[in-house]
């Protein structure tokens, strides 16, 4: 799973990023490697429910403090670790090419098989 992380202070997503992501999606599906992908709305539409010191509490978004909010995810199925890295690199390349000043990261996690 690729988790796209960035600070919300990067501002509005430029339309060119949406277009490039749509192309990435199309390519990934036509290549049989992309299983599922979604963008996530900004954190003001979300909440965090936490358990601290035995207390469960809910906090509404937005989370202005957070520098690494998950902005979207892609579930991929590839044959090697390096293929996953390459797919993650492409996600960053899309942002580099289409979103001046963007800073963020892709976290790649393997889905556990039991």
């Amino acid at each position, binding site marked *: 799973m690729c988790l796209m992380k960035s600070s919300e202070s990067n501002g509005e997503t430029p339309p060119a990023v949406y277009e490039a992501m749509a192309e990435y999606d199309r390519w990934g599906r036509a290549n*049989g*490697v992309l299983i599922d992908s979604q963008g996530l709305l900004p954190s003001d539409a979300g909440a965090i429910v936490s358990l601290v010191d035995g207390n469960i509490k809910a906090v509404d978004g937005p989370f202005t403090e957070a520098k690494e909010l998950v902005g979207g995810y892609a*579930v991929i199925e590839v044959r*090697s670790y390096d293929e996953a890295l390459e797919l993650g690199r492409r996600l960053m390349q899309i942002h580099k090419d289409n979103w001046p000043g963007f800073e963020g990261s892709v976290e790649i996690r393997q889905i556990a098989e039991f």
Partner: protein
Amino acid sequence: MGDETTRAAIEAVWRLESTRLIAALVRIVRDVGLAEDVAQDAIVAALAQWPASGIPANPGAWLMTTAKRRAVDAFRARAKHDAAAAALARELSESVDEDPGAGIDHVEDDVLRLMFICCHPALTPEAQSTLTLKLVAGLSTREIARAYLAPEATIAQRVSRAKRTLAETGAAIEEPSGPERADRLETVLGVVYLLFNEGYSATEGDDWMRPALCDEAVRLGRILTALVPDDPEVHGLAALMELQSSRLAARAGPGGEPILLDAQDRRRWDATRIRRGRDALARADALLATAGPDAEAGPYALQAAIAAEHARAASVDGTDWDRVAELYEQLGRRTGSPVAELNRAVALGRARGPAAGLALLDQLDDVPALRGYHLVPSVRGDLYERQGRGAEAAAEFERAASMTANERERQLLLRRADAARGSG
């Protein structure tokens, strides 16, 4: 970046790009062998340059441009003798110059055409599946050899013979249309399903299954749904493979021994694949519904519907066996396959008791296609066993064991024979 890391990255790029690279090159150079050669040349050039220069931002486009340049060189060399090659060399060199890196546009068309070419009727089924694994799945000769348990030289020979056959029949660039296209699509689906089955239930050798082959087939099925989104059977096949493969992890024990449906831990079934399988099946059903009231589900969609019934059930006893029997009945009517009837006997045995299953099995005794098929005595043994006829069940399991070429399956059947004798 170290050389080792770059090498691994280049291999990953090749895995991800080789299909559409070769597919686009086939359109341009009109020769499968040459397309693969120049694609290989491009990857060799990448291995020489990328460790020093770094991996380019768009590695696929870089490989495409390099491969096209190699193709121009090849045509120029050939052009000294051949006017047609001279024309191609001119045409191609212009397209390389004017738009470096482009030419990976008609991706879907190109890849589908490549699949059609790999499944050309002039090729044997073996050659079709091998070429599909090589060119569409992007597996190396060594990997294919491992999957087929064949010597690498045999596979290499099969590939080069297939490419020669294609060149001789002038098949490389034709793109069928109309009924011929439908036929060819059916062959493509058949080849992909063959690959899946080869992996799901290895017909020979010591392995009960070869998951890597299944995974490749599932991937090819997914590619096909993107390439041919309007065909119910394409989605039916994808659904079938997603659903069946969801059980891969649960089908074998730690020592590689088979675990049958009754004993499988359903928590180990892959939920993502089940969900994808159900989605694909729903898509197949929806397409069928728009095709008119007389449209009937095809064999893949029917088998997928059966697999979906198993996936839906919490246990073997909780399975809607009547529905499964009904689906097998439709499948048998649709395909005329006696194997569907054999499976219906199993489902009836579960739905209405072993006697009902045995009654249908008796009708299948004289079917020539089932003669020598080890699953007939295996099913009979199972039904006898559940009637408490232990000795007869054991004899059937032993007969089945003597008929299978798969060692794991043979051992399982012999174990079942022992168990049945003990209980009877």
